[in-house]
């Protein structure tokens, strides 16, 4: 089966590349071995977690960093492209460009970020949340993945005294009869239509009348943001959402919208299948095979490897080494296992920067040779610690777009 481009991996990076290419009229296939890390999304896209300007930090990064490889100028060029891609999906992200703003984490701490979904709590700086008067922090009775004690404590540290309330409805109680399945997503599936209205009424009844702002867990709108808007419409005061522990409702919404967009543009999306081998010839990848399709060769002019890091199994390891799982391309890692990890989990763990070896145009390498039609993007890339830096989503989005651009250029040639 022949395609223009085959994208291996269906997360943020693969989707960014796939949608961009499909928009250009390319016939694309996307193979996704399971669902993506967007299921753990924070509600924000972090470009680089620093004070001030993220793009300003690029020049100080080491040359192995994906941002350095893409280059500051290219990143600046791609910024509006990224924003319009998200807007096209119907995702309403706000920013404070060129300066980072702050997102509120599921425990109420503030982290620097680039783009945040409009309904989320955000601040222009740590301790500089919007000028709220009386704040109601609303928990859902029995929902354990929204830690109101911590949020309240951390709001307090920022000088905000929130009234903690806890609400429930008969529908939510029914959900809680299951000992394990009262997750963000189960709640989001329940709180729609009349159940959502009833929930809003309970919130109003539970909160003091003079509340100026309501803070709620981000458990609304798994398919689209309809329920978020419907919820906000029930209140005459602002309603802001705070990210929950995984799974992430807005992340799943984003994933769904991206997948739909990709398919609507004619892309073929294969979920639950995995690329197991590739045929390399003369410095090019000719075709790939997958778990489900036996000896069917999926051929393409270009390939994008966007399978993620260890967590999503783009990278695997055993006692002896670290490997790229789909095609067995080259990986940058330390040979001595002792040096992969450090004893404090919050240290800069060396294994976090392991990943696929690429040249400066993000071409992957196999046996030391650059593969001119195979690009690596997102968390599978080596040379950066996305968690420590606060750059995972940013690198994924920007490198996906960057690679789509590179591929588009080669067609022009």
């Amino acid at each position, binding site marked *: 089966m022949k395609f223009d481009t085959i994208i291996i991996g269906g997360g943020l990076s693969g989707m960014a590349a796939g949608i961009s290419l499909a928009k250009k009229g390319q016939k694309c296939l996307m193979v996704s071995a399971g669902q993506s890390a967007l299921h753990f999304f924070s509600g924000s896209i972090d470009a680089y977690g620093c004070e001030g300007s993220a793009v300003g930090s690029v020049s100080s990064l080491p040359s192995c960093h994906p941002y350095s490889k893409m280059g500051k100028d290219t990143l600046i060029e791609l910024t509006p492209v990224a924003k319009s891609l998200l807007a096209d999906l119907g995702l309403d992200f706000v920013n404070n460009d060129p300066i980072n703003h702050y997102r509120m984490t599921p*425990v109420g701490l503030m982290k620097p970020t680039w783009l945040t979904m409009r309904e989320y709590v955000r601040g222009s700086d740590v301790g500089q949340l919007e000028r709220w008067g009386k704040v109601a922090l609303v928990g859902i009775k*029995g929902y354990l993945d929204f830690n109101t004690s911590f949020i309240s404590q951390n709001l307090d540290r920022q000088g905000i005294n929130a009234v903690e309330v806890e609400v429930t409805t008969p529908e939510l109680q029914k959900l809680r009869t299951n*000992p394990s399945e009262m997750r963000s997503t189960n709640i989001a599936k329940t709180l729609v239509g009349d159940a959502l209205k009833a929930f809003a009424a309970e919130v109003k009844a539970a909160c003091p009348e003079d509340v100026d702002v309501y803070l709620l867990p981000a458990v609304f709108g798994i398919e689209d943001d309809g329920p978020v808007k419907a919820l906000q419409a029930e209140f005459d005061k602002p309603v802001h959402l705070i990210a929950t522990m995984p799974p992430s409702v807005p992340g799943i919404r984003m994933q769904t919208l991206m997948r739909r967009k990709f398919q609507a543009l004619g892309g073929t999306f294969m979920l639950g299948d995995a690329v197991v081998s590739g045929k390399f010839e003369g410095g090019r990848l000719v075709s790939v095979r997958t778990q489900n399709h036996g000896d069917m060769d999926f051929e393409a002019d270009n390939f994008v490897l966007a399978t993620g890091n260890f967590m999503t199994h783009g990278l695997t390891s055993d006692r002896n080494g670290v490997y790229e799982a789909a095609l067995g391309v080259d990986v940058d890692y330390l040979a001595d296992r002792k040096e992969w990890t450090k004893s*404090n989990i919050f240290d800069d763990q060396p294994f*976090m920067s392991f990943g696929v070896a690429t040249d400066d145009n993000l071409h992957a390498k196999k046996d030391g040779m650059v593969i001119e039609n195979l690009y690596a993007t997102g968390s599978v890339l080596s040379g950066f610690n996305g968690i420590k830096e606060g750059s995972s989503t940013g690198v994924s989005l920007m490198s996906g777009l960057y690679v789509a651009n590179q591929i588009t250029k080669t067609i022009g040639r």
Partner: protein
Amino acid sequence: MTDETIKQYDVIVIGGGITGAGTARDCAMRGLKTLLVERYDLTTGATGRNHGLLHSGARYAVTDHESAEECISENMILRSIARHCVEETDGLFITLPEDDLAYQATFIESCLRAGIKAEAIDPAEARILEPAVNKDLIGAVKVPDGAVDPFRLTMANVYDARMHGADVLTYHEVVGMEKDGDRVVGVKLLNHHNHQTKIVHAAITINAAGIWGQKIVQMAGAQIGMFPAKGALLVFGHRVNNVVINRCRKPANADILVPGDTVCVIGTTSDRVPFDTVDDMRVTPEEVDVLLREGEKLAPCLATTRILRAYAGVRPLVAADNDPSGRNISRGIVCLDHEERDGIPGFITITGGKLMTYRLMAEWATDMACRKLGIDKKCATATTPLYGSELKAGETRGKKTYSIGEKVAFRAAEGRHGTLSKDVPKADIYDNALVCECEQVTVGEVKYAIENLNVHNMLNLRRRTRVAMGTCQGELCMCRAAGILAKSEGNAAKAQVDLVEFVNERWHGMYPVGWADTLCEGQFTSMIYEGLCGLNVFDKK
């Protein structure tokens, strides 16, 4: 600041390991007004860092007849008094082609002489009895080994001691001995929670502090030669075996695989380590490699089984008094009357021994204390079941059938707390919600533990309930449990710091085996707690 509240006890027991817990129970049962003090949490030392093997004594039969006899005797006692802490799995001693089959006869003979029922069985029968066993075995002996949960056993003894009137203070470190002339009359305690000190008096002070007992003896003005021996172990993701598997040869590295609760444990190595390292035991890659290499010989499927974590404990080996070099090490029970030995009245040290013989050690130490106090009351710990292990009329262990729809978590809690699980709240949907999904720990069980089982932080909670001890080592449950702790203590600031420390405590066991699924899990944990939540700001480097 010193809080000079002075309280008078008959006995102070130092050390919240199994020996201290057992001693506190025995003392309390004999009517002594007892205080148990522990510098950190119960089971922090060697008690919480071993195989959890209910030795039949077979392992010692050839080399140490006395230990073997003690083991089998205590083994039988624990089966009746600590039913909910024990799994009657039986054990196999297997001979592999590389081992000397002739050793088997010596082994069986020694076992029988010590009163251990050891029976040679056909290798084919062994393969049926335990399908995970190395198929190449050429000999097998069945012995009455089992599994014992040291966390549960210690807690059960502490709970029992409390029910008999004992007071228990965890996070209270002995920082000095109170003396009246040569006599020890009490201890000075530092409360690690509020950083205040206080003095407590007692007629007798029993040092049951394991390897750390050396320092206690020094504080009392005497000397003892302790030699820490490090043993490293690995925990696997599930029970690959349901029968304990041992190698039938002279004791060596990694020759015991013990199933315990939802996991199994391979161990151990044995290396003398300097005394100043005992508070920071790390497992090295070399030890991991040895454990895996040898472990796979016992049960080849370990090669494809997920490793959850590595840990190491220190055995408190005691040098014989006439040999300070430590070459002549006693593995048996050492009960020192410091009045006789060093001219320090009011002070007893109970050490050496092993998890299996804790009750006997407690008996010896309590007997000595009673003698000194002039109390004539017989030890009853061998015949009185621990709270949680009482037999109900008509109930036989392991045979209970559960009705359809009875929650898996209720059964799990019953496994952990025995009959005391009746006190776990389970009346409403909110209490029945799962905090830890791997280990089936409900909100109700967490609340029960906080209220009844000396829980102050996440680490305590883990040891009492198995929260975060499953496959993922706490991905979502850590945050859930921390939320409940924050609410119950009304201190979210403390709970956050505690959570961060706990995330790191989990990682300490994971990074020595940081490859494959464990590495993936570590990255996922970092992504949640640092990337998503930003909790790393509370990390005290």
